[in-house]
């Protein structure tokens, strides 16, 4: 199967899910919390004409205030910690947090140092972990699907409470 075929199949499934839950696009704000930039290469690849994720309803937004989800890369460095928390607080509820890449999942090769923070879940609740160094574009799409399932559960819980 070619990359294009894989993408078509996964993308359509993702599109269905997004349509059901949001009735519009899934808005994502990406935050580099100290990555090596490898993860950014792959997030950017999702916008190239071969993957073209916008057609499946995934939209990268400029402000966290417009975002449904934060896609965080990097181990969370000391110098990015505050900016990351501010971005998290600026994102409206109910929100999703995806930790993308080994660094964001558990610190990866950088781990815990005086300047590096061994993963996003030390600082905020994480909904999905997308492992890989960096994860391939297909893996990111798969991670997003899992995240959306999680959001569905979250919304249901909120409804039950109400």
């Amino acid at each position, binding site marked *: 199967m070619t*990359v294009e075929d894989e993408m078509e199949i996964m993308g359509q499934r993702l599109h269905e899910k997004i349509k059901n839950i949001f009735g519009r696009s899934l808005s994502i*704000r*990406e*935050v*580099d*919390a*100290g*990555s*090596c*930039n*490898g*993860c*950014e*290469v*792959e*997030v*950017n*690849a999702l*916008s*190239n*004409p*071969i*993957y073209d994720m916008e057609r499946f309803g995934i939209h*990268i937004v*400029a*402000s*966290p205030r417009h975002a449904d989800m934060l896609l965080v890369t*990097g*181990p969370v*460095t*000391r*110098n*990015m910690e505050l*900016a990351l928390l501010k*971005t998290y607080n600026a994102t409206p509820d109910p929100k999703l947090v995806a930790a993308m890449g080994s660094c964001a999942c558990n610190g*990866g*090769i*950088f*781990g*815990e*140092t*005086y*300047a*590096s923070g061994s993963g996003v879940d030390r600082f905020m609740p994480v909904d999905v972990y997308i492992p890989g*160094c*960096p994860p*391939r574009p297909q893996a990111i799409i798969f991670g997003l699907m899992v995240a959306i399932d999680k959001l569905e559960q979250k919304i249901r819980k909120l409804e039950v409470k109400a």
Partner: protein
Amino acid sequence: MSEEYIEAIRKKFGNLILDETVSNNETYLTIKKDDAVHICDYLYHTLRSALLSMFATDERARDGCFKIHYVFSCKGDAFIIIQIKIEENLPKFTTLTHKIPSANWYEREIQDMFGLVPVGHPDPRRLIHFEDWPAGLYPLRKDFDIRTKPERVKGEYIYRRVEGEGVYEIPVGPVHAGVIEPGHFRFSVAGEPILNLEIRLFYTHKGVEKLFETMSIDKAVFLAERVSGDNSAAHAVAFCQAVEKLAGIDIPPRAKYIRTILLELERIYNHLGDIAGIATDVAYPFGAAHANRSKELMMQLNEKLTGSRLLRGMNAIGGVRRDIGDKKEMISKELDSLQKDFRELMELLVSSPSVADRIETTGRISTEIAKGLHVVGPVGRASGIDSDIRRDHPYAAYPKLEFKVPVSKEGDVNARTNVRADEVYESITLIRQALSRLHEGEIRKDSGKIPDGCALGYTESPRGETFYWVHISNGRIERCKVRDPSFCNWLAIEYAVLDNIVPDFPIINKSLSLSYSGNDM
């Protein structure tokens, strides 16, 4: 060779040289602390050697002092490293920045990481640590535990101020609108034109150099690949070459060719990405889509060859891990179609007046500024600096291959785009030549136990010269100094944007293709 340089230094400063050692193409001269500025100034201004890197080491346990090393490049593939000793109870040295402007950030880095103060430095603020980092803690000192988590203290970072009627500031970042790395930019503008830009980086500082000291040599190759993720191969090869050089390992010819192919594949996909970025920022999405498609196809080729879209996991001490010789045909087929597509793309780009209008004369960096700041790689070459490590200090299979080093004088976004485009063609030729000479043979030599010693390793990454200085002691990494090209190039952006308008900033930024992670480490 370095002989004539050393002779000249000996003649002029003979009595100041305390010690002289030579290993491979590196000559180490130890001199008295107070004389460093004169000798460096002489090397730089009279002998026209470039300052390639500058760093400190903590040798208190062995020699009872810190040392500062100034690495200079000489014609004829040689290096001179000036060393000075600094006593712990007098942790100061005279700044070199007034004589060699590119010493600026190195000295501030040494101040933050070792607590050695460059006396007389024009900008003695912190560079790497933020204002909330407590005073008196220096991570690269040997008595600093890597897992220390210092408390955040109160402090303030003072930005340069530009004042006057109608002047206002625009702060941008660290979290940006696009998918890019974090950094803070502070513009002072009067209307649209930019009067001043101050950059603030090191948001992604992870403690990489300290981490190297905790890793086995084999594992450290993987860390080198992650210093600046999109330049994985260049960093890994530079690190491996430093270790191989100090251990006297001559890797098999086949491995040299494979490394060369990997390095050029890396250059191609990076340059395609940069050209795509420039096309996006000048609002030419068709060109951007075209370039991004080619980039993706190259990354898929990377994956087919190496298992990694970013060419990771291939390099190892002693050679490469995987043979790609059986995929010759696949590679040359991909290169054929890339060449065709790329030619079409560039024809489109250069024939579009709306593109030319945005990139010609935009973000100019003069040769003088580029020289002073030691701007490297395609950005330096687009400003008239004719240097390329592949030719000037050859490594891997480059001495056996023919290639041109494109240089331009204009120094604007247009020149940087064209230099990169020409380099893509050169890379294609280089890979073709390497493929045709890929003779049968082993791909990796057993490295055995690595002896004690230190050496430089270097590559020309897609962004420019990448340096490693590795010191091994008892089979462990005692110190690993990394100098990513972006560390040299970042300051150039403060000059490139002057008198340009704010909306042109993204294009200028993209055309400089700066790595934050490689710079911040």
